[in-house]
């Protein structure tokens, strides 16, 4: 997981306030919290001298672009395909008690995590308990992962 300091090092560090925040560090924190977008730092986009930093910043922030609204990110290259998250997920168990519930691959379409082509994929994540008005801090999938392939931003 990238840190606010690592993001700060890729910004102009001029505290010009064009993004609406008082300091570049505040902007870094805003990016990490997904309250700000990279394009709001106009000097970074417009000035040629920041080209390399902008490129690196986009690379570093790319996983966050892909994170769902629940904040779930999957890193398939780290995934063991072990199915721990598929079987631990309370939504999966409720949706498919005779399959996921007892450790087998899902058959229901309503599951939100399943293993395909050797790695986990997510589906219909708005059913995830971390989403919506009654959201809770469920961490069944991240806590059971042997390799931090699945995490929340």
């Amino acid at each position: 997981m990238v840190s606010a300091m690592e993001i700060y090092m890729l910004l102009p560090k001029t505290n010009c306030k064009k993004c609406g925040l008082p300091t570049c560090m505040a902007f870094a924190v805003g990016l990490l919290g997904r309250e700000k977008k990279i394009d709001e730092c106009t000097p970074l986009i417009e000035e040629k001298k920041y080209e390399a930093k902008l490129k690196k910043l986009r690379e570093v922030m790319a996983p966050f672009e892909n994170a769902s609204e629940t904040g779930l990110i999957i890193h398939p290259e780290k995934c063991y395909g072990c199915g721990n998250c598929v079987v631990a997920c309370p939504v999966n168990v409720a949706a498919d008690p005779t399959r996921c519930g007892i450790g087998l691959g899902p058959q229901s379409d309503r599951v939100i995590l399943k293993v395909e082509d050797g790695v986990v994929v997510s589906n219909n994540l708005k059913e995830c308990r971390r989403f919506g008005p009654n959201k809770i801090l469920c961490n069944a999938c991240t806590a059971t992962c042997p390799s931090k392939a699945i995490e929340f931003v």
Partner: protein
Amino acid sequence: MEAVTCTGCSLLCNDIEAAVTDEKLFHVKNLCRKGHGHFQAAFSERTVPMIDGQKATIDQAIARAAEILSSAKKPLLYGWSNCTLEAQAAGVRLAEKLGATIDDTSSFCQGILMERILDGRIPTCTLDDVRNYADTSIFWGADPSNSHPRHLSRFSYYPRGEKRQKSYEEERTCIAVDVRRSATAEICSNYYYRVAPGSDEQFIEAVLAVLDGKIPKVADKKKMIELGSILKKTEYGVIFPGLGMVYSLQEKMDLFERLVARLNEITAFKVVPMVGHYNTRGFNELLREKTGFINRVSFSGGAPAHGPEHSVMAAAKSCDAALVIGSDPLSALPFATAKALAKVPLIAIDPRRSLATDAARVVIPSAISGLEAGGTAVRMDGMRVKFEPFLKTDLLTDEQILTKIMEAI
């Protein structure tokens, strides 16, 4: 999508769904990364019949193999752990006919433990029993996250079971005993007991001590006492020993047997061996039924003889020809053994290229069991799994190849 069985490890998962198109694995569900690698392997580096580095027909290769084996005085037949029961049975018949030595991978893996389990000296259970009843799972010198990836999600930690409806959240404890914080040990978090390499004997003595209410001779006494109380409160415990534990104890397996017996005076405690290949246990059971021994058997004197001199490591040096089937001892065994095997005329029966096929005088391509060939195998817990192939091929199965070799002798 077709329902298929994975032969990538000894869990033999059969809830896999696969679809193939244009000679490529198009889409597959529920297969872990290890199984996925196993399936993908069907589509590359496939062997063709070869004699002395030149392409040949399958019939020529089989004939040459039969020639080499029948003129050898001390042939060795090695591999077997990646073969179906049907092929293994053909292999044992071939060994008998040739008066050969036959051995499998258990010889340098879980053999010492498997013997005691099959002899009934160490109580065991099925993986379904684990899922339904186990409230304590102990991974000892084993890292299933890497070796048997779906172990925890299908059986030992995360799924619900008959008596474990609340599963990992409230009703199961996972313990890891290891020399390092493996991926599995990480999952076990506070229940990770670190031991120094080779010191499992002392660990067992310490556990026996706390079970008797005595002070254990370890640095972290509090943690060991805590382990003792977990074990005493267990309703149905299962120990999964891996190579780490087996190699550490070796000749001292009696001590582990004593520990398990002691635990069973208090509560139910079973042991399931974490064998690697998909049908190692099948070979051990089959050979034991026929000869009384699980591995390392020689038929040279007519009646089956057993001993370390008939292990692949010793026989590699004394044999004058070897058949290697579904295995790559040149990759998997110590250099001295690999070197000895590379010197004798080798016949390799393998679907894919390996160091053994590169070194072999005769290469015989075979259908991959589980994917291209059907048959029966025995899961790590003794359950029999029968499977049908889902990929079409013209290649001969291991069983067919062995039968043809036997006919030619």
